[in-house]
């Protein structure tokens, strides 16, 4: 099959298992974000794809061929490191042309290709500058151009934008995504920023404790998280303990949610509901009674913190759709059944 496939990849360092039987199949040309908290094994997984670490067991297949035993320098990939790893003794142009120089390309070919790439990253005329004279964003682009110089089959980036300030980072996310779509190159990005993953990825792979917990398109990860960890890690969520009442309905904080039945064979569960799906209304009926403890009015959105049954539930709305509430007020929480995700607890 075409694309990259990880089969039962495990990596242990002594007693510590960094990556635990990871299985993943990525079609050609997809943009994949490896997402997870620090220490979850996402960087180790990327380094194994690059060949900088050897898996303890398992195989990595590229277009059907096992590349596990192939050393890094023969894998035909481009990688951008967190530190960027630009060569300090080379100029911008020489940095970009380095992979061509290694392969014995002529001086003219090197120049031609590096100029082409400099145009692609909007840095024409920077060829002769020393790397140290560039700004953070410019260095970032040079590192990307260098990784793409040989039109590799795989494009790997390890937290590439973490050194940039927030505004530049957002702009680079869009730029990176557009570049990837134009080139149609299979791309893996390691990030701990879920917003970054949502912006760029075709496929988000959420990892925790060395395991792949869920691999799905970003919106599916957001709407249908596979477990409580994923739900909590991606965006803000309210995680509530749930039980089944005698009619088999899901009951949260002592109140059954209409039209939401507990899956077969489960008596206890967690319910995840996004803050924007929680509606506030009058007390009574099917609503869960609670007390407003705090209102955070951010202008664009209003976050309302409601305490009910010892839990704090957050509801987010725009000023238009929310009647004004104040701290101390009694409100009813409505959890629409189609917005609730029932998860194993």
């Amino acid at each position: 099959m075409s694309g990259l496939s990880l089969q039962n990849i495990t990596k242990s360092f002594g007693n510590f298992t960094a990556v635990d039987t990871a299985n993943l199949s990525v079609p050609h040309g997809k943009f994949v974000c490896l997402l997870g908290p620090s220490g979850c094994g996402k960087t180790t997984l990327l380094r194994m794809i690059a060949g900088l670490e050897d898996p303890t067991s398992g195989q990595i297949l590229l277009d059907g061929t096992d590349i596990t035993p192939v050393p890094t320098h023969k894998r035909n990939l481009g990688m951008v490191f967190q530190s960027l790893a630009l060569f300090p003794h080379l100029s911008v142009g020489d940095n970009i042309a380095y992979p061509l120089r290694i392969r014995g390309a002529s001086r003219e070919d090197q120049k031609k290709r590096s100029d082409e790439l400099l145009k692609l990253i909007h840095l024409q005329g920077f060829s002769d500058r020393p790397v140290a004279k560039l700004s953070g964003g410019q260095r970032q682009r040079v590192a990307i151009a260098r990784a793409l110089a040989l039109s590799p089959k795989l494009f790997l980036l390890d937290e590439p934008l973490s050194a940039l300030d927030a505004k530049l980072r957002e702009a680079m996310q869009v730029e990176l995504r557009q570049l990837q779509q134009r080139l149609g190159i299979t791309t893996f990005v390691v990030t701990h920023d879920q917003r970054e993953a949502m912006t760029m990825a075709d496929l988000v792979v959420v990892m925790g404790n060395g395991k792949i917990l869920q691999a799905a398109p970003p919106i599916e990860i957001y709407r249908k998280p596979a477990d409580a960890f994923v739900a909590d890690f991606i965006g803000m969520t309210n995680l509530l303990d749930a039980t089944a009442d005698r009619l088999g309905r899901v009951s949260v904080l002592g109140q059954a949610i209409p039209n939401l039945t507990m899956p077969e064979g489960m008596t206890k569960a967690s319910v995840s509901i996004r803050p924007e799906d929680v509606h506030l209304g009058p007390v009574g009926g099917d609503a869960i009674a609670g007390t407003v403890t705090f209102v955070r009015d951010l202008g664009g959105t209003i976050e309302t913190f409601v305490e009910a049954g010892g839990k704090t539930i957050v509801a987010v709305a725009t000023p238009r759709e929310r009647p004004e509430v104040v701290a101390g007020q009694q409100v009813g929480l409505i959890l629409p059944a189609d917005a609730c995700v029932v998860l194993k607890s």
Partner: protein
Amino acid sequence: MKREAPKSLADYSPLFFPGLMLIVFFVVPFSTMIAVSFFQRDPSGFYTPDFVFDNYARFLSLFFAKVLGFSLMLAVMVAICCVVIAFPFTYLLTKRPRKVQTIWLVCLLSVLSLSEVIIGFAWSTLFSRTAGITNLFVAIGLMKEPVALLPSFWAVLTGMVYQALPYTILVLYPALVRLDPTLLEAARTLGASPVRAFMNVVVPALRNTIVATLIMVFVFALGSYLLPQILGRPSHWTLSVLITDQAIYQSNMPFAAAMAVFLVLMSLALVGLTLLVGRRENAL
């Protein structure tokens, strides 16, 4: 940050101590030596104050030119050998676990505790015919019969490299430990084999460190005067040996001083030249 120029005497006070040390231990003795180099030798006694160029004139002969040339050549060779051996060694050392690194560094430091005399006699035993390493080669069938490897130029070189190597490693170690390991990984992902990546990336990135280390070992080797005597023939004696000989055995202080001044000037010139060449290459 804007720095204000020091105004009062108190602002200069941090400089007093280093200044004093420099005067007591460098300016005074070195000026004395320069002065003595112009004095007249008194064959019956020590020397008489004077201002003559005889000592320098005597130095300008083919014999001393050869000795000077040999001394500089030997020091350069020691410096190059040390860096060529120590650089890859130290690089590989920094890739080992921390514990292994510590053990190696402690062993290297213990070599520093050996005096030049002990090193000299240890190597003279190792290179001897009766008890030397050639006996081992005979035992494993590499050689027919044991031979003496000294006195010879190679014996001198080996001894001096052995003596300077721990210093070289200790000077290179901090720079190599700080080197960003992802530079090398980046080169590998871009298609360079590990050896190629090392030559293309690690060596040029640490060029300044390498030049500084070369200069340090060069100066260090220039002052060596015991090893050439223990391990070499008189033709392998360096200028430092001759200076010792003149100063201590011939009691010709003015001439020894003149040679020492000349040696200092020559090595300063060489170091300056190295730095100048380095800067020009940097500018490119």
